[in-house]
């Protein structure tokens, strides 16, 4: 039972490390395009090797087998036996995706779908065959593209090439004869031959003969040295790959040879026995055909690993320090309870101030733990931009800035998809084709910049391209065509740009699979609004556009303004409040006797009566007796009628949905110092709901 649990833990670590390894492979492969740097190839190879080893150990054979062929290709590149070609890199990148998919299935405890792997295995085999050590495999079409071999700088000592599986018909053999001659350093690499033998014995009856000839006299014996070698006979008709897996970890520090033991005479056409076998993907047993028939793509839910978080040790240390201080403060305060002397009042007060400081610092530190660098989200873009620009035939250089800017884990997870949308849009619509760029007098290669930085209590993320910019005339034309605006409406630039956030709006002439369906920008804005953020567009025709996202640093704490309406208390986010005014009658007017407007500086703002909206008995229904809070979201302003403004304070946001449900106009709840609950207003939601209901009645006064 406990063993199972321990195993679960270990497997969890394997998955975590595999995904990290895959990310490392991906980023490595992306830099491999231009210059084949040996260290980079090594990094990629090592990641693949660990994934293969781990997968084999934990019985994810599909992953291990597929990764093995990837590793073979990488190994040849590493040893300088093969040039790094764009073709191979592309296949390797796809392989990373396939391994990731398979690993995700394994993590979700779902059957591993091998359709992608099967398809790519063929590709890998083709590339391997293009300049294999022995060109025994039928050379597939496309050999013309074979890259010229590159002589690796600084010849490395020839490493043993990982053993490729020998293909034999299982019914023709009775077992395997294995010669295992480990390097004397075997023990130092933490490998135990006994474990290997035990694992082999698990496959069938095993005969082990140890060769002790090398053993020195006892005086000369170094116990950390391995002097032994073994001859093994395994009486089990198993796939060669099964045995290779067992030796996986010692493969690089030993000489191992395998020979099938045939039933009856050795078949003459045994094409690929012994070393230097044809590097082909191992044949797959038939039963898997069933899973191939149902190529269900089952992406593991992104939320599956949302539960854990990796925290830098110094953050935890800081926390421990603070808790230490808190304990000291607590014991100091505890003294006063034992024997109270009025003269101690001053030190009691000091102690309480210290407690308040400790608490605040502790809170900040705990919040810090939830903060992760945005690099986690930016990491996917080099690959995305690489793939997309290739597909679109555009030349794009991606620049990432401020990857270390930290933001809350929840915000980080939810901002990923909107960013992908924006980057795709920038590449598809914004960036021009190389010829067009040259014709416009720009450099052939466009620049896409992702930039993150802190500003006040917010984090700003910018997606900036030096492409064509937004075409105002076309946006206006489309908007008129779809009846989104009046034919003769005069709009400011900002209003025109904001049209692209309207659902169903797209100016793409052609609907591509990237963008142009008009779903997207409205979703982007909604997602960002859900996070309490806003989007702004800056654009200049022919020069490029910048999309600026402003997000709160955290979703857990809010700088709040406490409001009172009648007997009820609400909290509004201070960020969305422009100002609060005591209205005078001359600033109030109404349209059609129904919609109320408030003249704020040069514009008329609709008035939301919070007491009507939430059905509260207010102090007074007379607007001039209350206060109007001017709030803004996405450039839209309204004024909200309340009875009184109370304190401004930081409040901890609690979910209303966990135990209850989403309530329109509310963003959550918080707990006051006295233990009662106050509800938090969802200002963007309030504004859009209100304006949507009103839009039938009045034209929005801009």
């Amino acid at each position: 039972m406990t063993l199972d649990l321990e195993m679960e833990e270990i497997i969890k670590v394997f998955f975590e490390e595999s995904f990290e390894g895959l990310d490392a492979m991906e980023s490595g492969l992306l830099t491999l395009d231009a210059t084949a740097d040996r260290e980079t190839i090594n990094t990629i190879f090592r990641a693949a090797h660990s994934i293969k080893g781990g997968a084999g150990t934990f019985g994810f054979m599909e992953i291990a087998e597929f990764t093995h062929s990837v590793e073979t290709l990488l190994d040849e590149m590493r040893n300088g036996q093969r040039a790094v070609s764009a073709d191979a890199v592309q296949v390797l990148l796809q392989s990373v995706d396939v391994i990731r998919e398979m690993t995700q299935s394994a993590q979700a405890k779902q059957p591993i779908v091998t359709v992608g792997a099967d398809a790519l295995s063929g590709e890998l085999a083709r590339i391997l065959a293009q300049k294999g050590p022995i060109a025994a495999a039928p050379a597939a079409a496309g050999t013309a593209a074979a890259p010229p071999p590159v002589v690796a700088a600084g010849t490395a000592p020839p490493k043993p090439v990982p053993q490729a599986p020998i293909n034999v018909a299982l019914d023709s053999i009775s077992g395997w004869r294995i010669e295992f001659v480990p390097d004397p350093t075997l023990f130092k690499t933490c490998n135990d031959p006994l474990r290997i033998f035990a694992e082999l014995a698990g496959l069938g009856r095993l005969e082990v003969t140890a060769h002790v000839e090398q053993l020195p006299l006892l005086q000369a014996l170094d116990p950390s040295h391995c002097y032994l070698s073994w001859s093994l006979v395994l009486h089990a008709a198993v796939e060669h790959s099964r045995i290779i897996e067992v030796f996986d970890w010692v493969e690089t520090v030993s000489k191992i040879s395998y020979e099938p033991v045939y039933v009856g005479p050795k078949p003459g056409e045994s094409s690929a026995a012994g070393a230097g076998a044809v590097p082909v993907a191992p044949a797959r047993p038939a039963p898997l055909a069933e899973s191939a028939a149902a190529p269900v793509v089952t992406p593991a839910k992104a939320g599956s690993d949302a539960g854990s978080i990796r925290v830098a040790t110094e953050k935890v240390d800081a926390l421990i320090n603070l808790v230490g201080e808190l304990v000291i403060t607590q014991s100091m305060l505890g003294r006063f309870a034992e024997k109270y002397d009025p003269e101690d009042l001053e030190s009691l007060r000091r102690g309480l101030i210290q407690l308040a400081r400790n608490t605040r610092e502790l809170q900040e530190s705990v919040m810090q733990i939830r903060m992760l660098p945005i690099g986690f989200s930016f990491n996917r873009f080099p690959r995305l931009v690489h793939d997309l620009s290739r597909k679109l035939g555009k030349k794009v250089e991606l620049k990432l800035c401020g990857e270390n800017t930290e933001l809350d884990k929840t915000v980080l997870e939810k901002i990923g998809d909107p960013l992908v949308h924006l980057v795709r849009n920038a590449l598809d619509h914004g960036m021009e084709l190389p010829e067009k760029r040259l014709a416009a007098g720009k450099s052939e290669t466009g620049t896409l910049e992702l930039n993150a930085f802190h500003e006040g209590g917010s984090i700003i993320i910018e997606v900036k391209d030096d492409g064509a910019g937004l075409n105002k005339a076309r946006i206006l034309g489309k908007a008129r065509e779809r009846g989104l605006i009046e034919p003769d409406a005069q709009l400011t630039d900002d209003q025109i740009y904001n049209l692209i956030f309207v659902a169903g709006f797209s100016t793409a002439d052609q609907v591509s699979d990237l963008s142009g369906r008009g779903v997207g920008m409205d979703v982007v804005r909604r997602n960002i609004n859900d996070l309490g953020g806003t989007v702004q567009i800056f654009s200049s025709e022919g020069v490029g556009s910048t999309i600026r996202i402003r997000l709160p640093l955290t979703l857990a704490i809010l700088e709040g303004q406490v409001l009172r309406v009648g007997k009820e208390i609400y909290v509004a986010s201070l960020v969305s409040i422009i100002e609060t005014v005591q209205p005078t009658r001359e600033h109030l007017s109404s349209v059609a006797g129904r919609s109320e407007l408030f003249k704020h500086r040069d514009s008329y703002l609709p008035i939301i009566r919070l007491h009507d909206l939430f059905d509260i008995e207010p102090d007074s229904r007379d607007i001039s007796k209350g206060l109007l809070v001017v709030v803004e979201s996405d450039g839209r302003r309204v004024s909200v009628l309340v009875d009184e403004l109370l304190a401004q304070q930081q409040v901890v946001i609690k979910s209303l949905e966990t135990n209850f449900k989403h309530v329109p106009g509310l963003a959550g709840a918080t707990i006051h110092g006295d233990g009662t609950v106050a509800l938090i207003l969802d200002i963007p939601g309030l504004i859009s709901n209100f304006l949507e209901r009103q839009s039938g009645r009045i034209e929005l006064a801009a």
Partner: protein
Amino acid sequence: MSMDIKPAGVAQAASGTEQYLSFLLGGEEYGVDIQKVQEIKGWDTVTRVPYSPPYVLGVINLRGSIVPVIDLRLRFGLEKVPHDATTVIIVVHVPGDRGERTVGMVVDAVADVYDVAGANILPPPEALGAVEKVFVRGLANQDGKMLILIDVDGLVISSVVGESQAAA
């Protein structure tokens, strides 16, 4: 004050019998599956939530969680009684969108804990109105009294989330 009535290692009732916590509501005795009950607590300040039906009184702060409270009297269409220090809230767990949902139910008083044998549970009578039928799991005859066993999940989810979503 609250009292935890689900100590570790509740003696599993003999097979075929289930334990029910009973409470009073307008002179009738109702039973709720004790496994669903987290705790019983006294009256607390409830914050009204806009757009809620009258029987959803609002939300309370239960040790840092925001927990909705429903008034079973109002839910069952009984006469409203003022809430005071003697009002009792039974806090139950029901399945939610994300794991469990914690909800408080205001009742007149908590009465007893019964072992009810499955064989003693009768299906709800045909004569019940449509509203009651949804919440009544069955009737049990316990020591000569009738105990109305309620379906907490159905009752609470329909009250808190709304009828349409509860049916889905």
